[in-house]
């Protein structure tokens, strides 16, 4: 009862401060519980999806002729194989596909679209209830990706222009594809009935295959993969395994969960720092009362318990509210998971772990308070009664006498001086400003970098005006030759570089054979920025992508053994470059390629200075159809377009969060600081300092700290921040990201925005606090 009254009284005394600290603890508990729930949900749902879909352990994509009997006999002879099937896919050109009401075909889509029928053995395409889809003729199941991207609904139409006639299908289901589900997977499978498939086959005969295997023991995937690569079985295309499917499916939501939990941890750090500051200020205010309590014999531990009670109750209430609110937020955060992967029945872990996570926040708060309240030990009853102060530690800095600050306005000088004298006190604010600067600047730098045309250097290719990509087809080699011939004769072309990517066999250090995609051609025309070494120039030189070099454990000067037509060929690693495309695993060399193993053809070209790029792109699109003709900017934006959109959203969010955080902490800190400084303010006002003078001092303190935070934050972002982004991106193949900086935004607009926000917040939050300082009352007390 007494504690209840005490808590209520204390809350009414410092409403805003209590609310702000409560809010931080609440948010931290909310985010950690939600993040934890998302991780558990993701894991459970994915397991359920993979089980239901019976996802293959190993898949070899292949474009070209195929001997199924050869595959059957190899599989039968291999003990590791439990089951095998070959999925035939009709490759659909986007320019022939119309979705829903749209009159525009999918020709500009970056997705590789195929039409398939439902498998019989495994690798099932599931509907949104995770049931195996069964269709009737005229029906189609569209990948769930399109329900979002094209706003499609059940009953909408899908039209295929076969050239001879239009085939129209009705969407009766949206499919979950355990292999190609997520947006970052660039291939999508549309499911149709066998009869429709046979009809479509009559018009479109471009076929790709998925040679799929279920293994007896899924721990043998890598052994099996090596065995397959060493065999003579078809392998014109990338090989993927279940591990990669899991990564692709969890990457986006996993990243969200990671960011959410990281935010939670940062918020709890800020909450603890705020709590520390609040508690210390409260102890400072109540020193005399504490001295009285000690003097009349109340034990230290009992006094401590009284103060602890408030924050334990607040921490418990905030953590509990955070957990309960997370039950609502979970719906929002899990929306993507529920759509793309589906849900699994709730496990005990899924219920318990978020609660444990939220409880850990409460525990952290309580332990922090116990540690902070050890300060009571230092309060002597006599000293407290006499001076009413615990005696704040202040750095004595003789060189900061008033004489030194003559060049400045006296109030500005007093403001700066106070920060330098009480650095420990201002630690919280400095840390928050630094943090706000970092979370604003890094995403801005990253966004500028990824939108810059120079970003192409992280995609394994040099910068050119136009890029032409020829897709795999029966006559692609002829089309490539004619394309090169045409461009060579085109007077508008200043220079061109034909490049061919084909599969080679590489012998690893342990003697196992694997495939390696190697791009061949002249790389000197459109140079690439190498992380180490240089472009391969001799026929025995090879450059490796960063991820390949890491996996093969190769450095400059090391050798790589290729097996070409049964003969071993040593290649010297001349350079290592960055490439985030194609899983980050590519290579470059100048040796001749095998036309039988070509995967794709590319032509990079620069136009003459008087040529119009738009007109030439249109010309080439028509002449080289169905080749994909793009300029560098489009190529980059199509490849990383989704990432750019997400990054823009993230940037907006971090700017808002940074500004909101700076407002909250500045107002909390300034209000507490004024309470702490009441005596000093009263003395200055008694001397003739006006409210404006005092406000200038506090404004100077805030802006001085902010400037410090921004400078430090900028330095951090440009150095360690850049390295951090490189580390994250190195997982995709770009190990050395160099920020492209827009100084106007990064050093002008956003810092000014932050300064304006902090200045306004400081003025508003100090206004009433200073004004209410009744000099006479304070002096007389």
């Amino acid at each position, binding site marked *: 009862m007494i504690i209840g009254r005490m808590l209520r009284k204390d809350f009414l005394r410092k409403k805003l401060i209590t609310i702000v600290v409560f809010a931080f603890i609440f948010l931290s508990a909310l985010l950690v519980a939600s993040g934890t729930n998302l991780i558990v949900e993701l894991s459970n749902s994915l397991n359920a999806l993979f089980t239901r879909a019976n996802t293959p352990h190993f898949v070899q994509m292949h474009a070209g002729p195929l001997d199924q009997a050869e595959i059957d006999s190899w599989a039968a002879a291999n003990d590791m194989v439990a089951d095998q099937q070959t999925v035939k896919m009709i490759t659909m050109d986007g320019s022939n596909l119309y979705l829903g009401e749209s009159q525009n075909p999918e020709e500009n889509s970056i997705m590789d679209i195929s039409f398939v029928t439902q498998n019989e053995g495994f690798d099932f395409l599931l509907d949104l209830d995770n049931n195996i889809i069964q269709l009737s003729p005229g029906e189609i199941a569209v990948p769930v990706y399109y329900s979002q991207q094209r706003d499609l609904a059940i009953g909408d139409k899908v039209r295929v222009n076969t050239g001879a006639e239009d085939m129209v299908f009705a969407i009766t289901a949206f499919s979950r594809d355990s292999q190609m589900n997520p947006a970052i997977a660039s291939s999508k499978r549309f499911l149709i009935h066998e009869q429709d498939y046979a009809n479509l086959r009559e018009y479109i005969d471009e076929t790709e295959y998925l040679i799929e295997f279920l293994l007896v023991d899924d721990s043998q995937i890598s052994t099996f993969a090596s065995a397959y690569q060493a065999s003579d079985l078809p392998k014109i295309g990338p090989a993927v395994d279940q591990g990669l499917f899991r990564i692709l499916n969890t990457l986006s939501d996993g990243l969200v969960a990671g960011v959410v939990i990281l935010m939670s941890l940062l918020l709890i750090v800020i909450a603890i720092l705020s709590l520390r500051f609040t508690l210390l200020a409260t102890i400072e205010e109540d020193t005399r009362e504490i001295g009285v309590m000690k003097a009349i014999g109340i034990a230290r531990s009992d006094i401590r318990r009284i103060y602890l009670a408030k924050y334990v109750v607040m921490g418990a209430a905030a953590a509990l509210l955070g957990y309960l609110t997370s039950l609502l937020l979970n719906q929002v955060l899990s929306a993507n998971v529920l759509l793309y992967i589906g849900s699994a029945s709730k496990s005990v872990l899924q219920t318990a772990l978020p609660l444990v996570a939220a409880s850990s926040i409460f525990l952290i708060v309580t332990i922090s308070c116990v540690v902070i309240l050890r300060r009571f030990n230092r309060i002597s009853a006599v000293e407290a009664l006499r001076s009413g102060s615990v005696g704040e530690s*202040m750095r*004595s800095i*003789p060189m900061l*006498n*008033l*004489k030194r600050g*003559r060049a400045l306005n*006296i*109030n500005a000088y007093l403001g700066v*001086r*106070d920060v330098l*004298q009480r650095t420990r006190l201002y630690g919280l604010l400095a840390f928050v400003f630094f943090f706000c600067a970092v979370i604003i600047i890094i995403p801005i730098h990253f966004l500028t970098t990824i939108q810059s045309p120079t970003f192409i250097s992280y995609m394994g290719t040099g910068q050119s005006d136009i890029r032409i990509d020829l897709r795999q087809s029966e006559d692609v080699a002829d089309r490539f030759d004619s394309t090169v011939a045409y461009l060579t004769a085109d007077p508008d072309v200043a220079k061109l570089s034909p490049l061919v990517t084909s599969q080679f066999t590489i012998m690893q250090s342990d003697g196992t054979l694997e495939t390696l995609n190697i791009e061949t051609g002249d790389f000197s025309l459109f140079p690439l920025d190498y992380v180490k070494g240089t472009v391969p120039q001799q026929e025995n030189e090879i450059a490796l992508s960063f991820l390949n070099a890491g996996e093969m454990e190769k450095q400059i000067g090391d050798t790589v053994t290729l097996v070409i037509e049964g003969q071993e060929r040593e290649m010297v690693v001349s350079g290592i470059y960055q490439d985030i495309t194609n899983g980050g695993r590519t290579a470059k060399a100048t040796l001749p390629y095998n036309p039988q193993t070509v995967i794709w053809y590319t032509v990079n070209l620069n136009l003459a200075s008087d040529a119009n790029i738009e007109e030439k792109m249109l010309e080439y699109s028509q002449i080289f159809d169905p080749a994909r003709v793009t300029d560098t900017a489009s190529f980059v934006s199509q490849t990383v377009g989704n990432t750019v959109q997400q990054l823009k959203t993230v940037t907006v969010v971090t700017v808002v969060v940074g500004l909101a955080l700076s407002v909250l902490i500045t107002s909390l800190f300034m209000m507490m600081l004024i309470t702490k400084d009441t*005596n*000093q303010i*009263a*003395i*200055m*006002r*008694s*001397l*003739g*300092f*006006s*409210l*404006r*003078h005092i406000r200038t001092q506090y404004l100077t303190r805030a802006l001085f700290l902010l400037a410090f935070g921004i400078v430090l934050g900028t330095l951090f972002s440009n150095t360690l921040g850049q390295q951090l982004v490189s580390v994250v991106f190195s997982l995709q193949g770009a190990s050395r990201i160099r920020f492209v900086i827009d100084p106007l935004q990064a050093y002008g607009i956003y810092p000014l925005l932050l300064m304006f926000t902090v200045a306004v917040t400081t003025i508003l939050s100090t206004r009433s606090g200073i004004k209410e300082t*009744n*000099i*006479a*009352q304070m*002096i*007389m007390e």
Partner: protein
Amino acid sequence: MTALLESQQLCKSFVLGNDNEYTVLSDVDLTIEPGEFVSVMGPSGSGKSTLLYNISGMDRAKSGRVLFNGQDITALSEEELSKVRLTGMGFVFQHIHLLKNLSIFDNVVLPAYLALEESHDQIDQRAEALMEQVGVAHLAGNDITQASGGQLQRVGICRALINDPDILFGDEPTGALNSKAAGEIMDLLAEINKSGTTIMLVTHDVRVAARSERVLFMLDGQIVSEKYLGKPSENGTERKEREESLSSWLTELGF
């Protein structure tokens, strides 16, 4: 001669927690001439400190006027009033109230650096001269923790005088000092008054009040009586008589 400081029907009240209004000053009329040395005495709760703070502009009265050098300071804005107090008034407190994050010298010069009516060098020279005069020049570079109570009160007086104010207010300036230090402070204040600075003190100490030329007695928020003692002599020989005269007067008033 125009009065330096004048209050006209000054009223001040406080509202207590249960919304009851408690009157502290009730229609106080007071005039202080330039060069006067006035003390205000009375029992606890009589309103003497409240009068001091309201008449010096540190607190806002409920009603009434205060004229300082003919200007109605109750009608001034907060900014204007601060400027008047900064340059025209000095204040000495019982608990001195120096800023703990400044050295002793910086505490003295701070009001002058804010007003900046002279150059910094001139201010510094004046501060050094003042501190020399009161005997604390050797403490200039020290922290405020490195001086005795009496020394700190002298510093407080220097601070109050740095802008050459027209009037010096004191709220129990010797209240926290031992008798020797108190005596020294009063000698100093007498000297300051002799040089022309008007002084108004609040005190409960007869020995302090006896050093002034006029004593006001307050009771229940009003000035109920006044005694004129006249200017003290140069050598202070009649100090004891002044104290006895004052004590008798106070006894008659029932204090």
